[in-house]
């Protein structure tokens, strides 16, 4: 897919596949095109060129059907702040036509350890609690693919670690595919089965984390990232 915003080429001929049960890390400096790619995959932004197929179906023509089986969470998107945690989840469970709604809400609340705040208004939550609520919402419909845009950005190290482990275990149990972006290189190395390294809207490397690090002759992902961001390796 390619995306132009006026004359700015935000994404240039990016093509990739995702496999069931895989965590695919999208990596790159600010403005590399990660979020634009996620928005195109969610059908929130239309690609200028190219076709997106999810579950083998064309997103442009079968978005509604596809959207029932995917979900997303982003640090930059919130829940209605005058509603309680439980009300938010109830709305999204209804929206996604979740069966046994109450059971599922209880399950995701327990998963992210936010049962005790279920009757709290969203505007009274800490940023970490809001992130966990967003993640709970993203799992409400038992998605097959999850798009996570910097999901642990505002979490403390303990909760971030728990969240990563939780996502890995959900992935294992449900054969869930996750497209993941983060600016925490250690996290990307730990989480991703495969990485796509983006720079100025183009793929500059792809493969397992060790292969990507090796292709730039770096000692870890952090060093590779800095090289790319400072354009030493491109």
């Amino acid at each position: 897919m390619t995306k132009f915003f006026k004359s700015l080429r935000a994404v240039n001929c990016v093509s990739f596949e995702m496999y069931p049960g895989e965590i695919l890390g999208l990596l790159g400096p600010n403005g590399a095109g990660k979020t634009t790619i996620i928005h195109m995959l969610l059908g929130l932004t239309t690609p200028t060129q190219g076709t997106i197929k999810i579950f083998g179906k064309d997103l442009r023509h079968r978005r509604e059907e596809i959207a029932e089986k995917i979900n997303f969470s982003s640090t930059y998107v919130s829940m209605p702040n005058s509603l309680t945690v439980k009300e938010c989840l109830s709305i999204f469970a209804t929206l996604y036509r979740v069966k046994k709604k109450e059971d599922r809400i209880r399950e995701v609340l327990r998963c992210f350890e936010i049962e005790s705040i279920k009757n709290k208004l969203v505007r009274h939550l800490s940023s970490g609690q809001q992130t966990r609520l967003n993640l709970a919402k993203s799992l409400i419909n038992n998605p097959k693919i999850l798009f996570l845009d910097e999901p642990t950005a505002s979490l403390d190290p303990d909760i971030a670690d728990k969240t990563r482990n939780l996502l890995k275990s959900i992935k294992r149990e449900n054969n869930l595919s996750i497209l993941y972006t983060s600016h925490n290189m250690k996290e990307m190395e730990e989480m991703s089965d495969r990485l796509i390294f983006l720079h100025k809207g183009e793929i500059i490397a792809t493969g397992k984390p060790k292969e990507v690090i090796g292709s730039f002759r770096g000692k870890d992902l952090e060093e590779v990232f800095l090289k790319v961001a400072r354009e030493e390796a491109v």
Partner: protein
Amino acid sequence: MKLNRLMALFLRHMYLYRRSIPRIMEVFYWPFLDLLVWGFITVYLSQFRQTLPGFITYFLGALILWDILFRAHQGISVSFLEDIWSRNLLNLFASPLKPSEYILALMFVSLVKLLITSTVMAFLAWLFYSFNIFIIGVSLIPFVLNLILMGWSIGILTTGLVLRFGQEAEVLAWALGFLFMPVSAVFYPVSVLPPLLQSISRFVPSSHVFEGMRAIINSGRFPLTELLLALGINFLYILISTTFFHLNFRVVKKKGLLVRIGE
């Protein structure tokens, strides 16, 4: 069109109003103040009723009916703004929700809000001024429906404009309805308008509604022509505004504006 999605959005707005005093105030406060101010003006001016029969019905009836149009408009545009303010728009449009379902749900929300407001206003008008809106009779129903349709088309148009031009266009959520007020002939007949505004008012469904209402009060005859004209123009406007919204939705997705307005 899936009922569960309409229900989800309806729930979202009902939860919001359930505990928000400022929002509940918004539903009752302004209509209440309007009714007080205009009601007392009407009582005062009614001393001259010999020259203007049915004066109270003209004014208070017109006031309540205009509020129906305004609430129908706001029910859509302000509910849409609520989703922007809470940065929740992307969560909604990343779900299977279709833009048409979104608009339909907001229409439903606006209907509930204006039913509550109108009931309260009609009750207060009866309580304070012994004015019974139903004096106009059952013919009131098709006219009210026309005002709701016009309010919806203004609301959908506003929503499309806010989508396209972002929060800068927010003010339209309150202002656009009032733009139609002078040519709607709410409190005076179309004949008092200058010729140019008279021509414009022919294309404004609400002017036919208010002219029709006055015809009922004055002569008791049912103004079928006015009603059919209002209905015809309303269907055209609903068609234009929904097409405008859908085209805009496509454009904002192309330009990446949906993401910008939703974050």
